[in-house]
């Protein structure tokens, strides 16, 4: 207590000294304090570019990156909230936006969002995540599709196939064909938890987006035990048997050279893998990007999005900064700039991707998103913390990753275990 009082006295004194300048301060120059984990690579480049735009509009950009795992960024955020000094905006995604907005007040962005006419160009499921309690408190920044199919051009030639698979049955036939051509492991995959979870979500959503929504997003007890879940685990076992078991905890990227060389055939991965492939020196015509298999003939888009949440601050300059930041991240030009750096696709479904600077993969993903929104087949990624809060997600991924690594677990047993894990984490 003592300390705080002393600090406010000091602040008051400083305020007195600053008195003559007060007139200027009232027209508050926008200032933004922000924390994120994006410090290096294309992520770092993109956020720095955004900062430049912020400064061009006369703002003061104060970004403090917390490199490393997302959890470390969250620890910093937690500490700042506990000490009553949250950043004006911070990176946060998915259902964590709603969870964290309960522990500290957030800014109501409704007016700014409405003025920009933004809501009708954002996928409804995505918009919902950023409106805890029905009010916009956060804004999505960029979108990735997690069920993107990367097919090796040489792998395809080696299997003497020319058609890309669109359903799981076709996918399985092609994988078999690739294996028969002498490819030991037709499916390329990393060994991380998220990698395993991602394979499962691609299976289930491809089999039935409705079942995915009921079981994974709404945790409906009946849907969790439904026949689609069983079918998804059966498909996941097939994929697991086609993967290189010697992967341990390595990232998916270690297999990329083999995939391109045609020693492996296909990979189900997020759209970000395109950037990784190009950075590794491979060419766009070394691989083909296609939507993940879907059994009902309509496109399915499993969505992952990064976002910024805005924390309430009293300072006039920070409030101005929040307004400016919100305005910027909704602009098509800014989203174009950002996605072209990171390889993602814009949040807005009305951005034109025909120009240079976009790849065919990005164009295809953006078109699939638009079509999937129309068909109501956009679902939120479990593996990338979009479908559930972190506690529930981790409990479910435990089951999925164990299933991928352990062939003795039957699909039936996996369904039971997943149901139990959900109950335990509720």
């Amino acid at each position, binding site marked *: 207590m003592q300390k705080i009082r002393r600090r406010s006295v000091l602040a008051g004194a400083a305020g007195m000294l600053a008195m003559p300048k007060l007139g200027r301060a009232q027209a508050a120059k926008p200032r933004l304090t922000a924390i994120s984990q994006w410090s290096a690579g294309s992520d770092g480049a993109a956020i720095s570019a955004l900062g430049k735009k912020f400064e061009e509009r006369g703002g003061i950009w104060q970004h403090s990156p917390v490199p490393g795992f997302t959890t470390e960024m969250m620890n910093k955020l937690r500490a700042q909230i506990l000490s009553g000094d949250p950043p004006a905006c911070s990176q946060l995604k998915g259902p964590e936006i709603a969870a*964290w907005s309960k522990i500290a007040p957030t800014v109501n962005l409704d007016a700014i969002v409405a003025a920009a006419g933004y809501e009708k160009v954002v996928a409804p499921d995505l918009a919902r995540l950023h409106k805890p309690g029905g009010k916009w408190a956060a804004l999505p920044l960029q979108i990735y599709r997690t069920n993107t199919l990367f097919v090796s051009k040489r792998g395809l030639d080696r299997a003497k196939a020319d058609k890309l698979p669109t359903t799981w049955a076709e996918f399985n036939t092609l994988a078999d064909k690739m294996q028969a051509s002498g490819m030991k492991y037709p499916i390329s995959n990393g060994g991380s938890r998220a990698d395993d979870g991602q394979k499962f979500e691609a299976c289930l959503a491809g089999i039935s987006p409705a079942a995915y929504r009921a079981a994974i997003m709404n945790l409906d007890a009946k849907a969790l035990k439904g026949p689609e879940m069983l079918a998804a685990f059966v498909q996941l076992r097939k994929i697991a048997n086609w993967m*290189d078991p010697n992967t*341990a*905890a390595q990232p998916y990227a270690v297999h990329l050279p083999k995939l391109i060389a045609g020693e492996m055939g296909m990979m189900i991965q997020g759209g970000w893998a395109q950037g990784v492939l190009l950075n590794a020196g491979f060419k766009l015509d070394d691989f083909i990007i296609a939507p993940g298999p879907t059994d009902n003939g309509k496109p399915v888009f499993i969505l992952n999005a990064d976002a910024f949440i805005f924390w309430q601050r009293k300072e006039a300059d920070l409030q101005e900064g929040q307004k400016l930041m919100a305005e910027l991240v909704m602009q098509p030009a800014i989203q174009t700039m950002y996605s072209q750096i990171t390889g993602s696709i814009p949040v807005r479904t009305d951005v034109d991707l025909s120009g240079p600077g976009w790849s065919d993969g990005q164009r295809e993903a953006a078109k699939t998103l638009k079509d999937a929104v129309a068909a109501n087949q956009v679902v939120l990624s479990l593996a990338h913390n979009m479908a559930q809060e972190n506690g529930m997600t981790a*409990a479910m991924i*435990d089951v999925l990753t*164990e299933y991928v690594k352990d062939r003795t677990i039957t699909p039936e047993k996996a369904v039971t275990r997943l149901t139990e894990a959900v109950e*335990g984490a509720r």
Partner: protein
Amino acid sequence: MKLNLRRLPEYLVIWVPLLLAAGQIVTFALWTTWISFTSATLMPSGDWVGLKNYTNVLATRNWKIAFDNLLIFGFGFVVLTALTGLFLAILLDQRIRGENVLRSIFLYPLALSFVVTGTAWSWLLNPGMGVQKLVNDLGWTGFRFDWLVDRDMAIWTIVIAGIWQSSGFAMALFLAGLRSVEPDLVKAAQIDGAGPFRLYTRVILPSLWPIVIAVMVILIQTAIRTFDLVRALTGGGPGIATQLPALVVYDFMFQRGQLGRGSAAAVLMLLTLAAVLLPYGIWKYVQRRRAANA
């Protein structure tokens, strides 16, 4: 008791930091224990929920696997590290040439952090690029050493890396112990015609007991709080096959945003540690009493 003012600086230097450190540890241990009984999630505050967090943690597969692993890892790591260390110490104790160089080599892994150890061994043990591939490329194509990706054996890869890292430390302590054995005792045994084997088993090793206990206790508490080694070597996998309690605590607290459950797991870890350290403390106490009475 009369306070000697001239010794006041000494008291201040010793007691103030000691009390601060102890107060900090005790305060946070108590705070964690308190949180473990509340419904805290993202923030350390919540309502009293009794033992709910404990029953919940104890029911998860993660915790069960972690605890089984702790038993396997604890036993394998402590016993094998101590034996390896003792073996190396006895070999070095033969007054050989180049002892200093060898001792530095064996002790050197201790200078590396567990993260570096784990990362290096994750490459060595990976069947696709490490030892297995090397032997296969040399011509023995049937050779298999894929424990790292075998969920039943993966925990032993952590034991191997742990032994490599810590046996030098055990060796150093044992060597000091061996050197401090009364030379007269050894001479007397040799005059009585004891061979090297009997000399060690009957004379030297029995006098090493206090050091054996000390090494064991230090290794056991290392085993219980092992975190970084697993994180770097297997990431808790394949699947969740190599989870350890410290990983589960971190996972609950910071990745799942469930501070209450994480705290409950942390308290369970503290109890495990107490179960090891308390008997040791009592044993030390009894020893001292006996020595005082003798």
